[in-house]
């Protein structure tokens, strides 16, 4: 009986020793439409104002927050930070959003870090859609081409 208990304890300890450290997550973590907003928004028009990342930190105290914004090509990362402030509710965006914005899916990975060593991580996504005018122009140009292609195919079949 004792042997069984000892073996189980050793197994649990071995498992615990090799389990990666886990960190606390943000209390809230989402994309919103403006600074100060709490309403989640995951789809943005190309000409919409820049998306903001809203984060609520788990505790009070001086903390640094940083975020990497991955563009739809998944090759370029943009860094945005809030620096060290005591605020628990924070909103950050890309200051150069108008020059870097792209249609497609974006991923935002962020972390917080207190001087005490406490840290946490969050990840979320949002999508940028083409503006309506661009869509209209695309359709105006695309429909005749599609019709032409369809006709050609029919003629070839005949």
């Amino acid at each position, binding site marked *: 009986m004792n042997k069984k208990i000892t073996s189980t304890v050793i*197994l649990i300890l071995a498992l615990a020793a*090799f389990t990666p450290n886990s960190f606390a997550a943000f209390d809230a973590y989402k994309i919103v439409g403006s600074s100060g907003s709490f309403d989640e928004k995951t789809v943005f028009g190309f000409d919409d104002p820049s998306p903001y990342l809203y984060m609520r930190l788990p505790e009070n105290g001086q903390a640094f927050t940083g975020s*990497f914004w991955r563009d739809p090509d998944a090759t370029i990362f943009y860094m945005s930070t809030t620096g060290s402030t005591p605020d628990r509710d924070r909103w950050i965006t890309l200051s150069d959003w108008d020059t870097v914005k792209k249609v497609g899916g974006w991923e935002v990975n962020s972390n917080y870090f207190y001087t005490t060593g406490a840290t946490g991580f969050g990840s979320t996504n949002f999508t940028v859609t083409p503006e309506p005018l661009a869509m209209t122009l695309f359709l105006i140009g695309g429909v005749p081409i599609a019709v032409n292609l369809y006709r050609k195919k029919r003629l070839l079949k005949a």
Partner: protein
Amino acid sequence: MKKFLLISIMFFVMCFGTAVNNAHAVGFVELFPVNSPISTTPQHYFDQGETPYLYMKLSIPDSAIAATISGWNDPDGLGYFSDLEVNANTERWAFLSNWSSVEKVGTWTIHANYFDSFGNNTVASTDLNVVPEPATMSLLLMGGIPLFFKRKQRIVS
């Protein structure tokens, strides 16, 4: 037979655990205080007036960029942040730009944070000790010894 089975399972768990840990060996490879922004020799004791630097050797995934920042906690528990560094360099030196105004004698605990564009987030810690400069110690002794003798004389009389 049972013993053999148990030992085999434990061996497998340990090997698997090590393999998993090594596969995710991203972040700090080395972390310790040094005495200059080019040194890679650990130094844990600093005289007052000497500026300590935090040396960080990193393992960064290919094509990722990493942000590092460190929190320096003084002997009274007050915390200060070093500057943030964001690039792909695998060797970095961080320090407190306001060290001369915040330095205190005693043990400092430093926590460093690694965060990369792939979402890897880790923390490592080290510490350093600030000792009173020799001149301060001499002055303390010069003032302290006469006081000590006076007190002793009083007790005797």
